[in-house]
């Protein structure tokens, strides 16, 4: 008979499927109510509806996309000097806007709009690399302190305390002043070094919290090797606050780069523009041609605001005190 074939009747499969779906939905719903979902997922649910976060995200995404497509978008080569002939040292040191150059040129006759567009690349690079290096240094120190505890922890934390005893921007100036010839890299290293103690402190704090937690105790009693406990059980769970801090540091790095350039400690090679450097270079013309400073400053402010908004709302979303 045809009914004895192993294929189940079509009605039964769909019933089982529907039941499974219903169970899944129920599990998801109860998890939602009881807060049983992962921290990141629940944070994302709140962030999705947070206008502050969305504005920050929109600015950041625009900035990154702009930095990627800038070379195709920019009408001129940022190092070329198409407006050189318009410069009159006495009467007209900075060429104004004209057809083809909507923002005019800078003091060397280069197209300002192109420099602003391409400048997003270097600015993004300075921000990301400084944050990344600071993060690496801080995570290394923080992991050592949090993993070994005891005297290693004390030693590392005293070093961190000393670094924190110099106001951070001042420390960045001091480190940048060490370089015999300033460059993009000395700038990045100076800004990154300042962030190391902050990251280290944060990570060490949450690593120590992890040390005392039940899942680490369980892993230890199961005989998991110490390095596996540190790298698989403690570190991944302790990274949350550090990642949030990194978002905020991106903003700080871009602003600090501008401050270093302003003091003459930035990159003197201006063929590849960076916003902080452009702002620093606009110094001599502040009185007569303030727009040279306004444009790069506005870009820095908007981008720094974007990262700050994102970082602050991330911090709020991940903070257990504000989770209701």
């Amino acid at each position: 008979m045809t009914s004895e074939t192993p294929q189940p009747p079509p009605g039964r499969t769909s019933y089982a499927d529907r039941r499974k779906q219903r169970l899944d939905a129920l599990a998801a719903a109860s998890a939602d109510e009881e807060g049983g979902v992962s921290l990141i997922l629940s944070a994302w649910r709140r962030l999705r509806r947070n206008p502050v976060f969305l504005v920050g995200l929109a600015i950041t995404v625009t900035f990154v996309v702009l930095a990627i497509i800038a070379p195709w978008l920019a009408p001129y080569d940022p190092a070329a000097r198409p407006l050189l002939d318009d410069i009159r040292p006495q009467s007209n040191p900075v060429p104004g806007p004209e057809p083809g150059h909507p923002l005019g040129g800078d003091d060397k006759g280069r197209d300002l709009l192109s420099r602003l567009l391409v400048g997003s690349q270097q600015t993004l690079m300075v921000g990301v690399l400084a944050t990344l290096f600071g993060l690496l240094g801080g995570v290394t120190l923080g992991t050592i302190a949090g993993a070994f505890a005891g005297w290693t922890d004390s030693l590392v934390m005293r070093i961190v305390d000393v670094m924190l005893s110099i106001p951070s921007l001042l420390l960045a100036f001091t480190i940048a002043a060490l370089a015999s010839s300033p460059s993009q890299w000395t700038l990045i290293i100076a800004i990154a070094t300042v962030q190391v103690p902050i990251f280290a402190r944060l990570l060490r704090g949450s690593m120590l919290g992890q040390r005392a937690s039940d899942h680490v105790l369980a892993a230890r009693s199961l005989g998991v090797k110490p390095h596996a406990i540190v790298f698989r059980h403690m570190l991944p769970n302790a990274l949350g606050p550090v990642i949030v801090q990194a978002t905020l540091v991106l903003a700080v790095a871009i602003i600090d780069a501008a401050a270093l350039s302003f003091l003459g400690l930035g990159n003197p090679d201006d063929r590849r523009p960076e916003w902080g450097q452009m702002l620093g270079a606009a110094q001599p013309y502040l009185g007569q041609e303030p727009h040279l400073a306004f444009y790069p400053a506005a870009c820095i402010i908007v981008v720094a605001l974007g990262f700050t908004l994102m970082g602050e709302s991330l911090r709020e979303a991940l903070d257990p005190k504000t989770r209701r």
Partner: protein
Amino acid sequence: MLRFVVRRLLQMVGVLLVLSLLVFVWLRSLPGGPVSALLGERQTEARREALEQALGLDQPLPVQYVRFMQRALQGDFGVSTQVLPGEDALDIFLSRLPATLELSFFALVIAVALGIPLGYVAARRKGTALDTTTVIFSLVGVAVPVFFTAFLLKYFFAVEWNLLPVSGRQSIGLDATRVTGLFVLDGILTREWDAAWDALKHLVLPSLALATIPFAVVFRITRASVLDVLDEDYVRTAEAKGLTARVIRGRHVLRNAMLPVVTTVGLQVGALLSGAVLTETVFSWRGVGQALAEGFLQKDYPVLQVLIMAAAAIYVLVNLLVDITYALIDPRIRTR
């Protein structure tokens, strides 16, 4: 309480000792070493060796460090090479200090006087237009580079609208008696009211510029802290007991909410010190910050060494004072 203070003082001495070691290492790792930094362009092999011997740089490093510390404890940090050639580095710091103290003090007063009340009001009216506006303002305030804020204020209030002086600490040609080096205070002490008023006018823009970041931070901490406290059971109890709004505000909310704010204000001294470097440069304010900026630019290492050590010492000392104040307010801290 005494034990707490002594322990914190010892910690501070430790931090400063390690810091001196770092500054020492910093000087040794300068491009080409300290001798090149001193001789600059004039260096020859013979001069190099002579100077190295004279400075004791041919001695082993630990011996050098002990000597460095001996001289430092006697206040001898060498002479300036670039900023004011020949001038004693410590004297440069001391002569510049009053200007920076005056500027930082006014900036801190502005930050606290605006930040705390606005933070409180924003927290009480959470979600209203006032709250949103002040929060946005404080976020933007942090995103603007300090020297650009300084420049904006200078450009509009001094250059465009001509309301306030463009730069400096006092109008040129004004004959004022110096007592403390704090110009406003000097004017008041000597009853030269025109001098005090003139100095005050010069102070407005730089101290406003310097105050933006501390204001934003103090505002945000106050708002967050007041919001936390308003949720506490003891505030609800106080309300249920029918206490007046004034008593609840003063005794229950503000006193508890101020604890984190006090710490934050201490930490803002750091922002003031770094901000002074930028603000003083924009306003040609002849203080420690401007000397630092010049030192960085011209690589005047003896001056930098004094100024950095002094800045760190001030920062650590202020935070020690803050911690002691904190312990006085909150007995729980002392037992730790």
